[in-house]
């Protein structure tokens, strides 16, 4: 694992800010341009430190797969936010031509092999990509991102068993945001109910399991980095439980056509009436927290931080405008790409 130099720390902060700004613009689209975003959209705000800290460990030839909450990863990998926003807006200029939308971003050239919209089902797929990497023998590692809810799927158990058995070069990054949609983790997870970390599930598969503060990108970088090193050395997989707090609701409201879509308040407030829990999470927001840390240790000046923020705001404004100005696909294009 490489030491994070100043330049890399600033890169991490910049990517975190880009993800935050992108997600805020997606959320804002529901108000600014009603009807432009269809279906169900899931935001990564709150998970930026975990996402960027994880991806900072990778080499360009490494790969990853993720879930329907997928906007953060490609942004940090260098995917054009214009193409991403256009995809979320269903435009022909979108990253996937409007075929996939918010839940199914793919950018194979940057190692992002895709997502499953079905909870837990991407885990065996990432495991298969790691099997392919093991056979290719080019020292590639695969990161597999999923949520705490997915760890109750059979796909999770089946995959971790094979990965450990075959010593596959994969790191399982479980973003534990404490909520499975509107169900609290201790309502549906035996480890959580017993007051134990979810990372202990790794023990059942004879692999290391670690829990890390997913709000601290350096802590995530170190935990995932150690796991990536282990995977690359041929020693096998690791389960990293990254504790994050999703700052938006699970997704926009699920509503039949005719009902304007919007983002409700977080489940802590909306469902459980636990406003203090949510406000505590806001006070620990990883983005301002990391900014303050970089400024206080002299890695970043206030001016430079403000400049980054201004640049990122402009970049994402351009992305929104690009998406809005882009044409829809020709309807007949619906019959392309069914078969290769």
């Amino acid at each position, binding site marked *: 694992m490489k030491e994070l130099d100043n330049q890399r720390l600033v890169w991490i902060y910049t990517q975190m800010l880009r993800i935050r700004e992108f997600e805020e613009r997606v959320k804002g689209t529901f108000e600014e341009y009603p009807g432009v975003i269809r279906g169900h959209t899931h935001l990564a705000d709150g998970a930026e430190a975990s996402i960027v800290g994880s991806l900072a460990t990778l080499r360009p030839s490494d790969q990853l797969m993720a879930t329907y909450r997928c906007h953060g990863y490609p942004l940090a990998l260098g995917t054009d936010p214009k193409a991403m926003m256009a995809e979320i807006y269903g435009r022909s200029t979108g990253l996937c031509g409007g075929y996939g939308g918010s839940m199914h971003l793919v950018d194979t050239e940057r190692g992002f092999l895709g997502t499953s919209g079905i909870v837990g*089902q991407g885990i065996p797929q990432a495991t*298969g*990509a790691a099997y392919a990497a093991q056979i290719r023998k080019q020292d590639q590692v695969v990161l597999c991102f999923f949520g705490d809810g997915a760890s109750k799927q059979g796909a999770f158990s089946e995959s971790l068993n094979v990965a450990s058995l075959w010593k596959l070069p994969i790191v399982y990054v479980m973003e534990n945001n404490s909520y499975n949609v509107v169900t609290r983790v201790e309502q549906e997870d035996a480890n959580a109910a017993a007051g134990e970390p979810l990372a202990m599930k790794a023990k059942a598969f004879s692999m290391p399991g670690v829990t890390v503060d997913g709000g601290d990108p350096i802590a995530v970088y170190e935990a995932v980095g150690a796991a990536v090193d282990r995977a690359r050395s041929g020693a096998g997989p690791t389960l990293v439980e990254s504790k994050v707090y999703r700052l938006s609701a699970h997704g926009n409201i699920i509503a039949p056509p005719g009902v304007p879509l919007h983002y409700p308040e977080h489940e802590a407030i909306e469902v459980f009436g636990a406003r203090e829990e949510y406000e505590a999470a806001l006070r620990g927001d990883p983005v301002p927290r990391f900014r303050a840390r970089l400024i206080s240790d002299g890695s970043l000046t206030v001016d430079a931080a403000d400049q980054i923020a201004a640049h990122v705001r402009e970049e994402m404004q351009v992305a929104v405008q690009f998406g809005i100005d882009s044409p829809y696909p020709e309807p007949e294009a619906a019959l392309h790409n069914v078969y290769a």
Partner: protein
Amino acid sequence: MAREIPYIAAINEAIHQEMARDESVLYFGQNLATTENDEFLKAFGSDRVRVTPISETAEIGMAVGAAIAGMRPVVELYMAEFMLVAMDQVVNEAPRFRYMSGGRVKVPLVLKAGYGFTAGWAGQHTGSIYGMFMGIPGLKVALPATAADAKGLMATAIRDENPVCYFHHYLLTLEPGEVPEGEYLVPFGQASVRRSGGDVTIVATGWMVGKALAAAESLAAEGIEAEVIDPRTLVPLDIDTILSSVEKTGHVVLVDQATRHASASALIAAEIADHGFSALKAPIKQVTALDASVPYSEPMEAYVLPDEAKILCAVHQVLGTAPVAA
């Protein structure tokens, strides 16, 4: 050079030859290559040939991921029903990925699944479940009825850039047939006319092809010439060959080992009604399994399955002729 080998040997030969030809072809699944004597393991090594735990979701899901990452996995599933354990991966993952990515990825994989083991395996290992995979855009379905097709369709399935469900019929496992040596590909979407005839079109798949041909011989003795068509792949379906035959005969009997509403014949009947109605001189007749799970006990099992007598009866019904007493 063709020589006679069993259906199962033809399948294995295709996998072996494709693995020799292309090192991205993998072969894994339950209960294979558990000793060093395994032919595939000896030839291709433990990177490419692996035994898996009883974890169908992991097996098929890993095949999807490995395929996206550039490999061509063949998953040994033994029983077609084992796919049901991992239905999300088969139906809602493998065939969707390419489309949802706007063509950025491809998912070339083969799910090798035995079916129709109506030899006392009772309700859960005997199904003819291919029909449920016919309406899934992105998925292909192959259904070899002969040893030669078993080889040629497997080789084509492995080279196809899409996920393919390859259903081989358990009761044909040891059935010998002439199979070409060396590279042999049977194209998808080209039905085989197993027997020509001008009086009635019989469409049959898998184990039912043999029964249809036997029925056709009996009919010939009565002066009725049946054309027997084996679609060989259900997706893509060569409806043109079927419609051309219907144009000629005007009479159709569809034979399918599946229960009626889960059968391929129901869909073929709909296509004929849609595109070939004016050629029909009588209603389409389907000979399918009766609407029950497959029972264990032999007399009951035989009762629910299509057979030669039921095919003959259906042909006489559509032709309005009386069967000639034996």
